[in-house]
């Protein structure tokens, strides 16, 4: 399905970029045209920290076809220090590490191979930050 969804230059996916409202300061991920909080300001690109905290999580056991080989895999909503929230897979983890409040780093990874044409789709995944590691 070659479409804007899989466009290879989406900044949010490749540079971990969100949007900050020039009016109220709200930070969203990915960037959008209108601020969902105040509707007034201009949305400007902002680089997000590659660190975050798990807001909530799950482990997917029954997966969509594109992710069958990966199941079971952890997923989480992660909040960055800027206040942006992302839905991401969590890689290189034990599922019981991925609980609300857990610290994660955000790393550039392959997300899926899309459809019959096999387009490689990239983005960010979270990886737990273990105590003692940088």
């Amino acid at each position, binding site marked *: 399905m070659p479409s804007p*969804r899989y466009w290879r230059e989406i900044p949010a996916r490749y540079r971990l970029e969100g949007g900050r409202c020039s009016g109220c300061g709200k930070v*969203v*991920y*990915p960037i959008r045209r209108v601020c*969902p909080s105040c509707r007034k300001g201009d949305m400007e690109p902002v680089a997000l920290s590659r660190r975050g905290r798990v*807001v*909530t*999580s*799950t*482990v*997917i*056991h*029954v*997966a*969509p*076809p*594109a*992710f069958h080989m*990966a199941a*079971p*895999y952890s*997923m*989480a*909503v992660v909040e960055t220090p800027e206040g942006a*929230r*992302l*839905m*991401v*897979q969590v890689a290189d983890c034990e*599922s019981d590490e991925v*609980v*609300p409040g857990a610290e994660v780093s955000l790393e550039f990874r392959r*997300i*899926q191979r899309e459809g019959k044409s096999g387009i490689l*789709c990239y*983005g960010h995944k979270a990886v737990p930050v273990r105590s003692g590691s940088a």
Partner: protein
Amino acid sequence: MRDVAIVGVGMTPFGELWESSLRDLFVDAASLALRDAGADHLDAIYVGNMAGGQLVGQEHLGPLMADQLGMRGVPSTRVESACASGGAALRAAFFEVASGASDLVLASGVEKMNDGADVTGVLATAADQEAEVYHGITFPGLYAMIARAHMAAHGTTLEDLAAVSVKNHRHGALNPKAQFKQEVTAEQVMASSMVADPLRLLHCSPVSDGAAAVLLCPLDRAAEFCDKPVKIRASGMATSAMALADRHDPAFLDAVHLAGNRAFDMGKVGPRDIDVAEVHDCFAIAELCVLEALCFTERGLAGEATRAGETTLGGRIPINTSGGLKSKGHPVGATGVAQVIEIVEQLRGEAGARQVKDAVVGLTQNMGGSGASAVVHIFERV
């Protein structure tokens, strides 16, 4: 606006109906509703349907269904709001009659899910494709995240979640139209296969085929069609952030809260005035979150109230006497209208073994996606 009544109802059984097509299901339900009211014509039709195009390759359901029902020429429109399509169709029909534009309007919902499609993938199109589905999330996964957030914030337990499934199956065992007419135990629920931690198979509504239809007319004409009309007292709808990540509190369904408040304001009633309610238990955690969003229980206490029997038949506020989506089945576009039929039967006093004694005011709550759209209606025996 004019007062509006429901004067006819009809639905198919819900389940794996391998011998019925999308159009068959609609015509069966619509014909029953017309017969129930003794009506021989319609001024308009609304068809609630989430994904006919993806599930069976059929779009343009408005004229198709009017034609199949023998109603060529009648205005007919498909309404889509994911799993809230049925509730949204009723809302459109309600305002068309209330405005005075039409007198006899059919609000219907239909879905044919067992026809070979990748149902999990189709349902996921009700989530944010770019921000959520791209990364591998599923619908059970989204509600599992809501469940974990609720457990972390309020101490909700696996036993609380199981109690919802046990209660709804107990109700559904009394419903001849239900897909699963059998009870389950908490032990069976908690031992069923894992879908998305902490949600297991028996916390999830099934994949279903089915249709439902209700006939609306002005209240002052209701006696022409029906001895026991049910008045639509209020309609409320709201939206929230499409992506779960964009909700301030993932454990709180703010669109449901807003839609409920709008309906309560319009109907000049409150949660304590409701005698019976059908709510959108697509997953066990959804019923708990809805009870809190509609203020049937305090925030964080829905699990405890469920385990205490407050929401069962005979309890303080019976919820999902039909068996809910869990036991009755969840043909997604039909669900919102089928909820209304259960409430109409309750308010007519025709719910048989599921009857709530002296029910006068009832409520339905239908939602789409992970709660991004929500529709609430309030009904009253007249």
